[in-house]
């Protein structure tokens, strides 16, 4: 089973305060740690679990600047066999559609049985790349996959729908699945493991080598152009309780009591 897994290097904003830049078009990321996109971490783990069970290869692919090598090295340390980064200044400002085109230009000439991507990225949240890529490649897909059982030449997958309902599908391979979080337990990788993985192949390709022009990607080649970012207006104005932990706890306990909840 030869598997390609597409990953993205993203700023970790889960617990950080997000500050919008002066031009209103992006966020300040200088002080932010970058990580592998959470959904992709599950996709990589799933690819490696399949390889460990059935043999074959795992190739990790990303689109991004040199810093994104950190995410590829992490994939290699987890057990991917090789990594490829598509890199070009013209890619700046690409949306999910333009990224899918860049990935397609690479993957259309590769051998594979299965492509896994995260169901979405934590930064832009488009949720477009995987399903668009499958359409470009002319292979079947399933989005939001929470379980994969491989059979001879096909896969039975569970897609996650609303309210915890799952939809079970049988899909012929080669196919592309976008992976939902919680499908497995991503393994831990040590710094040492990442260092050792330096011996593995990490190839960098530019757009010209993939037969794409600058107009195919970036803002020009995208469906969407971001005009401005802003902080969402609050739906409610919460009353923020002030004071030491003990003070705020006392105030809150009184509020609950006054409503008959204690």
């Amino acid at each position, binding site marked *: 089973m030869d598997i390609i897994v597409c990953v993205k290097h993203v700023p970790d904003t889960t617990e950080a305060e997000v500050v919008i830049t002066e031009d209103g078009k992006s966020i300040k990321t200088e002080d932010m740690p970058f990580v592998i996109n959470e959904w992709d971490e599950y996709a990589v783990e799933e690819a490696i679990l399949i390889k460990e069970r059935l043999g074959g290869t795992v190739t990790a692919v990303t689109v991004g600047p040199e810093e994104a090598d950190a995410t590829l090295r992490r994939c290699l340390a987890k057990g991917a066999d090789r990594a490829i980064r598509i890199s070009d200044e013209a890619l700046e400002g690409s949306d999910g559609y333009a990224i899918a085109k860049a990935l397609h230009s690479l993957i259309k000439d590769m051998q594979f049985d299965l492509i896994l991507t995260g169901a979405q990225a*934590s930064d832009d949240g488009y949720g477009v790349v995987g399903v*668009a890529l499958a359409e470009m490649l002319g292979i079947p897909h*399933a989005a939001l996959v929470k379980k994969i059982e491989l059979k001879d030449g096909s896969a039975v997958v569970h897609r996650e729908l609303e309210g915890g*309902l799952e939809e*079970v599908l049988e899909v012929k391979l080669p196919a592309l699945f976008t992976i939902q979080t919680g499908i497995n337990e991503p393994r831990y990788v040590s710094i040492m493991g990442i260092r050792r993985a330096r011996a593995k192949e990490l190839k960098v390709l530019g757009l010209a080598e993939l037969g794409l022009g600058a107009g195919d990607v970036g803002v020009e080649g995208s469906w969407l152009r*971001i005009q401005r970012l802003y902080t969402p207006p*609050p*739906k409610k104005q919460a009353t923020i309780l002030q004071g030491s932990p003990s003070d705020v706890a*006392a105030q809150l306990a009184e509020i609950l009591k006054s409503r008959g909840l204690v």
Partner: protein
Amino acid sequence: MGDIFVLAEHRMGEIRDVTFEMLSKGWELAEEAGGTLTAVLLGHGVDGFAKKLSDYAQRVLVVEDPLLENFNAELYQMVLSHLMREYKPSLTMIGHTGFGVDLAPALAVELGVPLATDCIDLCFRDGSLVVVRQMYGGKVNAEAVLRPSESYIVTVRPASFEAREAGAAGGEIVRVDSPLKGEVDYKRFVRYVEPPKGEVDITAADIIVSIGRGIKDEKNIPIVEELAKALGGVLACSRPIVDKGWLPKDRQVGSSGKTVRPKVYIAVGISGAFQHVVGMKDSELVIAINKDPKAPIFSFADYGIVDDLFKVVPELTKKIQELKAS
């Protein structure tokens, strides 16, 4: 401005709420721009749905086919691309749901039509489609313009628009022959799997204390569990806690978990991404404890505490226990 298509989403005999929310927004856009609103219904044995949708749209396009009984993105895509080529709508709205995300990107690529996903608002401005969508887990809103085109597709986040009351739109029901030639051999619907019934029904609880990523480690859970116990409530959580296997799925609040409306919902270390908020925003009283003052959860809360949960929660538990003892 021509047609606005709204794809009706239905599952297991019910039209889903997002359909009526999109029809409501679609109606508004069509009125502004002088277009017509068309509900697009694909399915099998859906006469009742067609009649219902005709109260909300000027036209209902119905494609009946046993192959469309259950959702299969490949078959839906074939039918929709056929209808879109034929009727050339200016805008097609699809729910940003488990159904829409499986369908819309492939449909857009096939037709060469620009797509914006997970939109919370949209309008036409100077002939271009402008959308609002969220980034960074709901911490930022982005206004974006789509590449100029004769036709656009958007997926719309559920609960972004209020569904109007049923009007008497008196929509014309138009039946279109199914373009499908038969089952596809590369993708087959097998069945639905209902979520397992858990031991605790959080939807029945009056008091819910809910934990998120901020809890950091499984071994910290008892700190918050103590508070839930002191209040006589139940412990619930956001998605990452279930993904990590720290609490069972039946404790999850949010779009892929349960929707709850307790008397009080205390969100502890939960940032408040949309997927969570949609499951608890109708609680009578919402209290949020989070150390990030800009966490989206505060804009859905009545009271907030911006501090370290590990300092505040034990104090609160103590205060509640004292009040109960006095």
